[in-house]
C-alpha cells in the first residue's frame, strides 16, 4: 500500500518548487504555464487529502480547482501577457539566488511553527510538512509581489498567496461547506480579472508594465 502521508508531503515539496519557479522565471508567459502546473499539483494534494481523511468535499474542491486554477486563471494571464509587451519590465528586483535563499529560510521558519501547533488531523497523519508548506507558500506569494518589476507578474504573487490559503483550508477545515470554497475561489478570480483589467488600462494609458515607472504619486 502507498503511504498517503508521504505522497502528500512530497507533493507539498513540489508545490514549493513550482511556486519558486513561478517567481524566478524570466518570461511572464512561462510563469503562467508553471502556475498551471503548480495548480495541478495542488489539485493532486486535494485528492490525496480527500483519500486519506475521507473528506468527500475535497474531490469537489479538486474539480473546481481544475477549472479555475489549472485552466481559467492561467488562460486569462497567458492571453493577456501575449498581448502586452514591455521588455523594460522583465526580471526581478532581487536576484534569483537571494530569492531561493529567502524561500529556504521561510520554509525552515514555518517548519518550526508547524511543529508547535496542536491540531489533531495534522498530528494524526504526520502532515506538519504540509502545514509548513501551506504557510510558506503564502509567504512565497508575498515575496513574488515585492520582487517583481512586471505588474502582471505581481498578480501571480496574489495567486500563490491564495493557493496557500486554499491549501490550509483543505488541510485543516475540509469539512467546510462547498459554498465556502466556491466563495473564496470566485472572489479570487474576480480579483485576478479586475487586476488584469487595471494592468491593461495602465498599459494602454501609461504604456508600461514596469512597477518602477509608476512613481507619479509620492509623499
Amino acid at each position, binding site marked *: 500500500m502507498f503511504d498517503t502521508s508521504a505522497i502528500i508531503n512530497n507533493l507539498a515539496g513540489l508545490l514549493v518548487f513550482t511556486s519558486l519557479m513561478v517567481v524566478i522565471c524570466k518570461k511572464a508567459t512561462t510563469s503562467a504555464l508553471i502556475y498551471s502546473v503548480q495548480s495541478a499539483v495542488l489539485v493532486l494534494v486535494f485528492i490525496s487529502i480527500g483519500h486519506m481523511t475521507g473528506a468527500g468535499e475535497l474531490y469537489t474542491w479538486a474539480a473546481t480547482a481544475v477549472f479555475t486554477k489549472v485552466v481559467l486563471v492561467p488562460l486569462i494571464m497567458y492571453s493577456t501577457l501575449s498581448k502586452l509587451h514591455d521588455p523594460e519590465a522583465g526580471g526581478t528586483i532581487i536576484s534569483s539566488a537571494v530569492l531561493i535563499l529567502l524561500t529556504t529560510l521561510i520554509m525552515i521558519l514555518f517548519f518550526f*511553527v508547524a511543529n*508547535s*501547533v*496542536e*491540531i*489533531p*488531523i495534522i498530528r494524526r497523519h504526520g502532515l506538519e510538512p504540509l502545514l509548513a508548506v501551506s504557510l510558506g507558500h*503564502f509567504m512565497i*506569494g*508575498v515575496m513574488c*509581489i515585492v520582487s517583481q518589476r512586471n*505588474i502582471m507578474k*505581481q498578480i501571480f*504573487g*496574489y495567486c500563490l*498567496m*491564495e493557493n*496557500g*490559503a486554499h491549501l*490550509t*483550508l483543505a*488541510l*485543516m*477545515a475540509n*469539512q*467546510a*461547506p462547498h459554498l*465556502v470554497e466556491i*466563495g*473564496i475561489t470566485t*472572489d479570487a478570480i*474576480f*480579483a485576478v480579472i*479586475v*487586476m488584469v483589467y*487595471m*494592468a491593461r*488600462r*495602465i498599459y494602454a*494609458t*501609461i504604456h508600461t508594465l514596469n512597477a518602477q515607472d*509608476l512613481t*507619479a*504619486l509620492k*509623499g
Partner: protein
Amino acid sequence: MNELLSNAQMLLYLLLATPFITSLLSFACSFGGKSARGPVNFINIAGLTTLFLIALAVIREVYTKGEVFAAGKWIYLDGLSALFLLVLALLAFITGLYSYGYMKHEVDHGEITVTTLCYYYGFSHLFIFTMLIVITTNNLILMWAGVEATTLASAFLVGIYGQNSSLEAAWKYIIICTVGVAFGLYGTVLVYSNASSAMAAAGLDPADAIFWTEVMQHTSGFDHTLMLIAFVFVFIGFGTKSGIFPLHAWLPDAHSEAPSPTSALLSAVLLKCAFLVILRYYIVINRSIESDMPQMMMLAFGCLSCLVAAFFIVTQHDLKRKLAYHSVQNMGLIAVGMGFGGPIGVFAAMIHVLNHSLAKGLLFCISGNVLLKYGTRDTRVVKGMLKAMPFSAILLAGGALGLGGLPPFNVFISEFLVVLAGIETNNFVLTVVLLLILMMVLGGLVHMVGSTIFGERPEQIAKKELGIMTLLPTGALLIMMLIMGVSIPKPVANIVHTATNIVLDGNSSFAQIKPDTRPIPIQGEVKAIIFEGASTQTSQEF
C-alpha cells in the same frame, strides 16, 4: 414576536437589496446616453434616501431586540455592527447628496461624460453594497469576501478619471489591499479551521464554525499558537484596509485621486468596516485564549500610525493627501484606544469611529469644493477662500479645527477619552507622546486653515459658491459634529455603549432600554465613564 422577527428579516433583506438594485439601475442608465443624466441622478437620490430610512429602521430593530438574524445565521446585526451601520448609512446618504452637486460640476465642465456618471453611481452603490455585506454578515469567510469586494468595487471609482495618476493610484490600491486582505483570508482560514476542529471534538457540527456567533459560543479548546498567528494575519490583512501602519501606503494615493465624495466614503466608512472585522476577531481571540498580544499589537501599531502620519500631515501640501494621512492618524488613534483598553479606552475607540467619520466626511467633501473652485489641491496655491467661497471656507475651518480636537467639536471628546484611558491604564509615557502627536497634528491643521482661508483671492477665481448641493450636506455634517461635541443624543450614546460592551465582554444586549431620546449632557456622560466605567453606566442608566 414571529411577525416582528420577520419584519426585522425583511428590513435586512431590503437593506442589502436597495444599494444593489440602485447600482444595477445606474449601470443600466449608461445605455441611455446623454438623456440618462436626469434619471440616474434621480435613481441615486432615491436609492440613498431609501437606504438611509431602511438602515434607521434596522438600527431601531437592533436597538429593540439586541441582535437580529436573517437568512438562517448568515446575516447578523448586533449593537457593534449597528454602530458601523449608522456610520455607513449617514455618510453614504450625505456624501451621496454631495455627489449630486460635485458631479454636476464635473459633467457641466466636460471632465466626465454622462455615461461615466452612470458608472460612477453604479460603482458607488456597489461599493456601499459590499460594505453592507461586511457589516451585516455573520459568516467569517463572507466577511473576508466582502472586504475583498469593497476593493474591487471601489478601485474603479479611484481610477474613474482615467488619468495617469489616478490609474497609478488605482493599481497601488488594488494590489496592496488585495494582497493585504489575502493575509486576512489566511487568518480567517486559521480561525475557522481551529474552531471547526474544536467544535468537532466537542461533538458539535464543525460546519457551524463558519459563523461568528457560533465561534463565540464555543471558544474553549482553541490552539493558543494558532490563534495568535491567526490574529497577526488578521491584523495585517484587515489592518491594511483600515489604513493602519505599515501597510497604509495605498491610502494617500487612493484618497487623493478618487473623486471627493468617494474619498469621503473611503475614509469615513471603508476604513471603519475593515476595522470592524478586526474587532470581531479581537473579541473571539480575547475570549478563546489568554494573551495580551492582540491588545499590545493594537497599541504598538496604533501609536506608530499616529506618529508616522503626523509627520506627513505637517509636511504635506496636497490638501487631500494631508486629509488622507489624517485618516491614518485617526485610525491609529482608534487602535490606541483599543490598546489602552478598559471601558474608557474601548468607549473612546467606539465613539471615535463615529466622530472621525463625521469630520472626515465633511473635510473630504469640502476639499472637493476647493479642488473644483481653484483647480488644485496645493495648499500653497489656494488662498483667500473667505473671499472667494465664504461658506465653504467656514465649513473647512470648522471641520479642520474640529478634526484637530478643538472643543466644542466632537473629536475633542474622543481624543480626551483616549488620553484619559492612557492615564487610567498607567501608560503615562505613551500618553505624553500621544499628546505631543495630537498637538503636532492640530498645528498642521491650523496652519492649513490659516493659509487657505485668509489672504487675497486670486484674480482669476470668481467670488461664488459652487451650489447649494455642495454646501447643505457638508453643513449638516458640521452641525452633527457640534451636537456630538456638546450633547450626545441618547440613542447614539446607547449604541456606542452597547458596542463597547460587546467588545469588552461579548454581551450583545442593549440592557434595560427605555424609549428615551433626550440628549445626555456631555459632562455627565464623561463623568459617568470616568467614575463608573462604561459597562456599569450602561446597565444603570438605560
